[in-house]
């Protein structure tokens, strides 16, 4: 399966624009983009096409082959989006934006509680742990102490932990890329 990454992230960003404050939307675009060209499109496909082919292949390997339940996948992904401050990633919905996961629906309420209400009874322990894992991965992986790993090993197999780690690393990469160049905010302004 091949995912049209650029089209999907533009769609995700555009639908977020009405929810954002002015300060976020006004973050500067840090590259020059030709008139009439969408910033994300320009960055991803025009600037470094030799690398973009490889990045797309890696993205497809992560998104297209994941065996994690979608809610756990999304809990970790959203946490990385929050840490990176990437607007596109925060509005990405994998059940909507990944073709082979469109049969798995997650209500918007589930996403809303990820913003500071992890005690919400709609989450499973694995979903909470996936969210916590991603946060520690991104903000302070040195804080992953024995107590944390005991909880992780109780809930996840080693194989699942490796998959979660691979996915989380890939999200860190893509979200930070968009954030650094400001193309996430620029795309939301369209």
């Amino acid at each position, binding site marked *: 399966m091949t995912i049209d990454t650029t089209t999907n992230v533009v769609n995700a960003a555009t639908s977020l624009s009405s929810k954002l404050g002015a300060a976020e939307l006004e973050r500067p675009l840090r590259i020059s983009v030709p008139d009439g060209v969408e910033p994300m499109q320009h960055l991803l496909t025009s600037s470094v096409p030799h690398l973009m082919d490889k990045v797309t*292949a890696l993205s497809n390997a992560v998104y297209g082959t994941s065996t994690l339940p979608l809610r756990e996948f999304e809990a970790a992904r959203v946490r990385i989006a929050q840490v*990176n401050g990437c607007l596109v990633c925060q509005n990405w919905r994998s059940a909507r934006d990944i073709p082979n996961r469109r049969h798995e629906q997650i209500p918007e309420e589930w996403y809303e509680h990820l913003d500071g209400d992890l005690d919400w009874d709609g989450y499973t322990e694995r979903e909470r742990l996936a969210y916590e894992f991603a946060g520690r991965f991104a903000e302070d992986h040195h804080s992953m102490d024995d107590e944390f790993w005991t909880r992780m090993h109780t809930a996840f197999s080693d194989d699942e932990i490796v998959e979660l780690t691979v996915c989380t690393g890939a999200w860190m990469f893509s979200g930070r890329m968009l*954030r650094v160049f400001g193309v996430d905010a620029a795309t939301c302004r369209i």
Partner: protein
Amino acid sequence: MTWLTETAPGPTEHDRVLGLRPAAAERSAELFNEIYSSAADPVLLELCRLRIATLHGSRWDLAYRYASAVAAGLSEDVVQALPSYPTSPLFSDQQRRCLGFAEQYAMDVQGLTDQDFAQVADTMSVPEMTAFTFALGMFDGMARFRAILDIEPDQSEGV
């Protein structure tokens, strides 16, 4: 040694761990190869990768050297001096700017300012800056991955 109890077959611990997700591992390796083979300055990339590895505590990354960086003149004396890069005479101004940017990227990307960005971007073309940032993203993600899973370097992989 990694704490994982399940691994795939392979000659090194790195191969055995990444072999659990072969598609992602292969695509990641291809991207790394492209990053280094197309880099205008592979030594600069290697210094940034090793600095990020130090911040994240990735033993594998600290032991490994990409061949293209070594071929381009990477010096172990410079590698050893990385902790003092802001003041060491072994580093050029460009290397200092890029290493500072790499640190900020790895530790707090939301705190990266327009000035941080400009002091590196003003010295590169847009494709070079994009490629450099792509590289930092991969270095950051993979160093965290290897540190968290505690992947140990094999003797054949170390310097």
